[in-house]
């Protein structure tokens, strides 16, 4: 056979093989894209879980947008649930666009280790998926979200983004949990959510110790948490008005510099000094005389703010160390800097035992300014 014939035969073979495609070709329209996974405790069988998947289905090509569909099933593990659910819909389930993993509080208190390990090893799931802890059952929560009028495929990320700007919660990623489970340099936090019949909302921060849920932080506690973790964007703080008893004023806080900690181990008691640098702008107050622009007034307000912040941060720190015994900030990391080798460190320090005994010293350096447009002369 001549060279040309051999080449043309090879080409024909190539074309045939090429158009068969590989075994892994999946059309984009054949996949069902899950945007949220919910894991509940099963009501019937204590060893099982209830898996809920929220799938976003595209509407017709004329109208843009997606509509939700929730599927639930009781199953022993995550993967068996997934493969069983594959039978009940007409498309193949694909987790690559999942943005939220929701675990119920009940289940989290028992430990989320098996789920985190399972989910982190799933190649389709993004490690930057957010982890939510739901006060009520996940199924209810996801149903409420699905019924909300502005449902879209990015509803979870959008909600988190908007609530991060008020700093009542914190970002929590799946890979953080996995990190902690394998190597415990600090403890993870989750986003605490809850729902009423009409609406689902973010309630605060869920604090974990290793893989078990130990407590919830809300309000100013969350703000303190964010200040210490250097993740404060902006927030509004309500503190007592120093000029008028019983009244409050608000200031917009943001971080001027990253906070820094010093950990001083004395025997079995760590002495932790936190230096915090914030910038504040007064935004409003409850009285009519709301023009505090002279220097003495601002100094007084500064003092009041500092006192308030010191108290809330101190409360937060003692809550996490004594009540929760969970080092979410990562003070252990600051301690490790003082040792040269791991052997030395592990022979000297047992952080789990030492942390509840910690004493905190908080120093706040704040600069306060007025943010009013119209100022008194």
């Amino acid at each position, binding site marked *: 056979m001549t060279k040309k014939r051999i080449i043309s035969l090879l080409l024909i073979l190539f074309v045939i093989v090429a158009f068969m495609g*590989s*075994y*892994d070709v999946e059309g984009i329209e054949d996949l069902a894209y899950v945007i949220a996974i919910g894991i509940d405790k099963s009501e019937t069988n204590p060893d099982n879980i209830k898996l809920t998947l929220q799938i976003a289905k595209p509407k017709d090509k004329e109208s843009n947008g997606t509509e939700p569909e929730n599927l639930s099933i009781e199953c022993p593990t995550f993967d068996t649930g997934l493969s069983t659910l594959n039978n009940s819909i007409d498309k193949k389930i694909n987790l*690559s666009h999942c943005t939220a993993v929701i675990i119920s509080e009940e289940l989290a208190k028992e430990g989320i280790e098996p789920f985190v390990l399972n989910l982190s090893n799933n*190649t389709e799931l*993004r*490690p*930057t998926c957010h982890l939510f802890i739901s006060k009520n059952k996940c199924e209810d929560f996801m149903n409420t979200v699905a019924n909300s009028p502005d449902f879209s495929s*990015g509803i979870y*990320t959008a909600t988190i983004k908007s609530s991060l700007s008020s700093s009542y919660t914190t970002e929590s990623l799946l*890979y953080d949990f*996995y*990190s902690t*489970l*394998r*190597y415990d*340099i*600090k403890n993870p936090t989750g986003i605490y959510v809850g729902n009423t019949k009409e609406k689902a909302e973010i309630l605060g921060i869920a604090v974990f110790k290793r893989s078990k849920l130990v407590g919830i932080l809300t309000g100013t506690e969350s703000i303190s948490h964010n200040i210490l973790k250097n993740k404060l964007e902006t927030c509004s703080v309500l503190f007592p008005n120093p000029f008028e008893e019983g009244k409050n004023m608000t200031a917009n806080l943001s971080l001027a510099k990253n906070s820094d900690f010093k950990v001083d181990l004395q025997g079995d008691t760590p002495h932790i000094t936190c230096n915090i640098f914030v910038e504040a702008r007064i935004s409003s107050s409850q009285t009519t005389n709301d023009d505090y622009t002279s220097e003495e007034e601002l100094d007084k307000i500064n003092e009041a703010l500092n006192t308030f912040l010191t108290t809330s941060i101190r409360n937060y720190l003692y809550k996490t160390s004594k009540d929760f015994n969970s080092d979410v900030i*990562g003070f*252990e*990391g*600051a301690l*490790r*800097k003082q*040792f*040269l*080798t*791991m*052997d*030395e*460190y592990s022979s000297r320090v047992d952080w789990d035992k030492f942390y509840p005994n910690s004493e905190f010293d908080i120093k706040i350096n704040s600069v306060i300014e007025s943010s009013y447009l119209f100022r008194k002369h």
Partner: protein
Amino acid sequence: MNSDYKISKLEAIFLILIVMINKIILNVPKSIIRLTGTGSLVNIIFVGALALILVILIVKLFKNFPNEDIIDVSEYIGGKILKTIVGIGYIILFGIVICTVIIRFTELLKVVYFENSPYIYITGFFLIAIGFANKFGFKSIIKTNFIILPFIFASIVFILFGISNYISPSSLYPILGNNIKNTFVDGISNIFAFSGIAYLFFTSPLLKNKKDLKSIGITFIILSTLFLFIVVGALLLVFPFITHSEELLSVYILVRLVEFGEFIQRADALFIYLWIISAFSYLSIALMFILNIFKKLTHATEHTELSFSLCSIILGITLLLKDSNLLSFIEDVIYKYYLIIFVFGISTIIMLLANIKKKFFKKSPAPNNQVKT
């Protein structure tokens, strides 16, 4: 090799650097971190300094043999027997490299993207690429490598920007690792990360300007140390747990975290794309060296035609070594110690002996090392 195409300094540096980058992407950071824990950064600097001394020594030893590579030098000392032994030794070394790289990448692709496809389908792509590359010859491979490498650099820098959100500096401490013995004494075996030195033994005859060898060696060590430092540092900063875990491909797991806003998410497919091209380049270079050694041992005239046949042999070997325990054993134990003993040890000794012989027999005729191309 094409004896009329000589490579410039920059091309030679890139030639050896592609080796480092591929190794960094694959498994070297994981092995280093597993051995020395959080002291890996200090260990890398220490090992880098050792490698620098070694390279300066090798370059000095090569000064007396400007147009020869290690095979010719071993012929000069020990005749045909030593030449064959050294040649086969290097062929085994490069062969292990090719097989392990192909298996690692195929494994990654199979787990992430090609769950249902047969193993041989994915391996086939690698082998077709390197078979073609070697059919076209030495010149094209060097030039393609020169074009590809800047993009790979850029991708690694890009990753570093992308993960800047997830860094927690405290995971680097304690800085000296588990203990001093572990970091400095056991950690010496981490010098296997600088496997590019094996290629340095072969670069001398290829250069336009023989004096460049020194600067090539030094630049290579400095750049590789820097890259290794950066990547290992990034891994430690982002994944504090990495000191006691076994994962598929450490830099891949790093890349899965890269996110730029809401538009670019899960960009790992693009990075894998680039790394596969760099793997093609690296494998072609390794195969090219194997063919060259083969040509020197057997005095074959046309060695490029062998490329596809060698690829079939490699296919057979990769199918045998698919088991991942066996593979880890080969990579972490066999390859590591083989490289250290054979390349850093035996080859350096051969060069030393050759230099001594040349000094004593200064008046004897120059070795007849003209290879017929």
